[in-house]
């Protein structure tokens, strides 16, 4: 805010002068508030037009029968009631929970391990760091296409590596993703989860920054106590970076609850809806399935929001005894 917004202070000489002074202070404050709002208005207008109003409208639509073209008709809780008896809704919920349950621990552990390796003073470490971060810069569609080929049952690199190892044991490598529903129902979801590790670069960078911030004195004290590298990682590094891990886990919960791109591009939810996740069903309800419509999709979106908020609060509460906050 501009310094010139502060009103000139006049020395009070009596009651009227005090009142005048209070009045000019009041006006000055209002001007200041107005100026502040003016400067913040680009964001405020954007927030109101593109966030607050649509979110409010979606809440209203969730209680309506709305097909985008015609006026919404109020139907009360029917959309929410329908969810309870909708098998496909529960299938999508189950798949999303499965994805999150596999992806969050795997990605967290992978990012921690990679970050601690990259925290070592080895030659060319900058190159390794760049290499780990690079996949996060690749557009989702491009990386999905690459992984489609890597997972190709017959020609894919993964099965070309696995085949000589597994076939002598009488085991055929799975047709991970498959084309046109030919994929392996059991392996399709793990394949998507494994693929998510490809883009842990962002978490690695955050963990790395946190690890470099751990006071060296703690490691020196741990060394004096006779701790080895594993004990140091467990008793020094992990507690010291635990707030960052918590942040990363919460963002992972939010992201994995909203997973859409990879299954949409790679499997279209198949085979046999084994990878049909919540956001895909929400999208189909809104734009593909006329029998459901935007009202049902809005209700799904609100349920998703409430569940994510609840999971976040639950994680924060559960983490109280696990996360160590250093005094500033």
């Amino acid at each position, binding site marked *: 805010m501009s310094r010139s917004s502060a009103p000139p202070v006049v020395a009070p000489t009596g009651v009227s002068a005090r009142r005048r002074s209070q009045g000019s202070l009041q006006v000055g404050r209002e001007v200041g508030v107005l100026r502040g709002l003016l400067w913040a208005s680009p964001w405020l207008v954007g927030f109101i037009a593109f966030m607050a109003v649509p979110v409010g409208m979606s809440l209203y639509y969730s209680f309506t029968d709305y097909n985008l073209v*015609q006026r919404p008709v109020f139907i009360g809780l029917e959309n929410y009631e329908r969810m309870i008896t909708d098998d496909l809704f529960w299938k999508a919920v189950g798949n999303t929970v499965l994805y999150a349950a596999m992806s969050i621990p795997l990605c967290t552990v992978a990012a921690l391990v990679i970050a601690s390796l990259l925290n070592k003073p080895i030659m060319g470490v900058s190159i390794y760091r760049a290499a780990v971060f690079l996949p996060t810069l690749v557009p989702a569609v491009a990386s999905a296409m690459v992984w489609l080929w890597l997972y190709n*049952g017959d020609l894919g690199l993964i099965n070309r590596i696995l085949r000589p190892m597994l076939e002598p044991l009488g085991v*055929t490598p799975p*047709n991970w993703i498959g084309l*046109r*529903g030919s994929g392996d129902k059991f392996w399709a979801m793990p394949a998507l989860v494994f693929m998510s590790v490809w883009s842990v670069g962002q978490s690695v960078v955050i963990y790395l920054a946190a690890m470099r911030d751990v006071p060296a004195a703690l490691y020196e004290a741990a060394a004096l106590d006779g701790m080895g590298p594993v004990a140091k990682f467990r008793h020094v590094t992990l507690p010291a970076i635990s707030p960052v891990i918590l942040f990363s886990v919460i963002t992972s919960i939010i992201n994995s609850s909203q997973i859409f791109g990879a299954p949409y591009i790679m499997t279209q939810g198949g085979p*046999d809806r084994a990878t049909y996740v919540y956001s895909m069903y929400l999208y189909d309800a809104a*734009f593909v*399935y006329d*029998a459901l419509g935007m009202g049902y999709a809005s209700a799904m979106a609100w349920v998703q929001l409430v569940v994510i908020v609840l999971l976040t609060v639950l994680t924060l509460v559960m983490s109280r005894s696990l996360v160590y906050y250093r005094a500033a």
Partner: protein
Amino acid sequence: MPTARTVMQWTRRGVLGALAAGGAGLVLAGPRRAHDAPSDRVVIDYWEKWTQDEGRAMQNVVDRFNASQSRIFVRYFSISDIDRKASIAIAGGSPPDIVGLWNFNVPGYATSGAIQPLGDLFDSGTLRMDDYAPAVRRLMMHRGTPYALVNTCGTVGLYYNRKLFKEAGLDPRRPPRTIAELDEYAAKLAIIEPSGRIERAGFVHTEPGWWTWFWGQYFGGDLYDQPTDRSTASSAINTLAYEWVATYPQRYGVKNLVALQAGLGNYGSGQNAFLSGRVAMVLQGPWLANVIARYAPSLDYAVAAPPVDESIYRADEPISLLDSDVLMLPSGCPHPRESMEFLAFTQRPDVVEYLSTVHCKNSPLLRASDEFLANHPNRSVSVHGELAASPRAFIFPRTPAWPMFRDEMEAGFHRIWRLEDSPASVLKKVDVRMQQALDVSRRRLERRRAATGGVS
């Protein structure tokens, strides 16, 4: 010697100068709008999904129309994800004048009032319904009112590899006509290794696997009864059809069929199952000829009517799916009269045949010119034309719930194909779920009618 401050100033000036020069260059010589419309004409915006060769062909049609008169100017826009964008644009009150979608969009768009009826074109005599093939007439209509026009369409025929027929001791002039013959031919054409690995399949339902819902039609069944708005997925005939589908994984083994499919390449490539000779017979549309011409020009193939159950076989009335793109007029489009003029132009036989030739599809019109048949890239286009003209040609079920129906059938098909559930059980589940969706749709439609005083 320049100081650090001077160097910084020069660098800053240089960067700013370069940015200004770049901006000026963009303004003067940068990209221009592709459609500079003449100011003295009514401008029609036409959204279409076609790109590349198909898009260029439609652009040629647009150019011909623009050159044919001086009152209307059509601008062609190629739009991805067009059905979503069109519905959002219509809902937002800013629709294009014309939109090119798929025929299964017609019931949903018509029911929700997103498109306008085109009855005027027929009532005024500009177009005649009798000029179109019977199945095309059905897909242009929704509950008795024309809502869409068709300028290209494709029927699904049985493509078979004549060379492989000869190798297997089969007569390439006598393709299978019935389901029993199809099974017999498929068995003769298949090459199965002792391990069970399928070196070559005679026929598999998953290649290309685009229409997992339509097998009941070849036994005389249907998935949906429009007059009663009932799902008929689990009818005895459909169950019989999918029991036949299940005989393939039972015979060849699920693992072997999945492995066969895993080794096949993309449709538009030389590794296409039919082009590479891994599958000897496939059900496909006329556009396959374009793929063959590009990736396997020496392939010796022929086309026949799809085989059907013996009890319903009639040589003069083949059964085939007719699929098409459609042109529609969105509700609230700015220039309906001028748009109809352009729509009528696209239905001229010469325009229809030009577009059908470039798109490698058959004509939606009942009569095709000799020139069209002679110059078409698919040498069997007349077979596809006969399939379209058959009174037993079928189209996508006419319900707004069709996309959900299709996905339910797709998921169910794969359960049957993997022998995870019996056809009767799978189809029963599809029936229950679809009937629920149909009932909810009907209830909501009635409620909407009541809320709007019957206008819906």
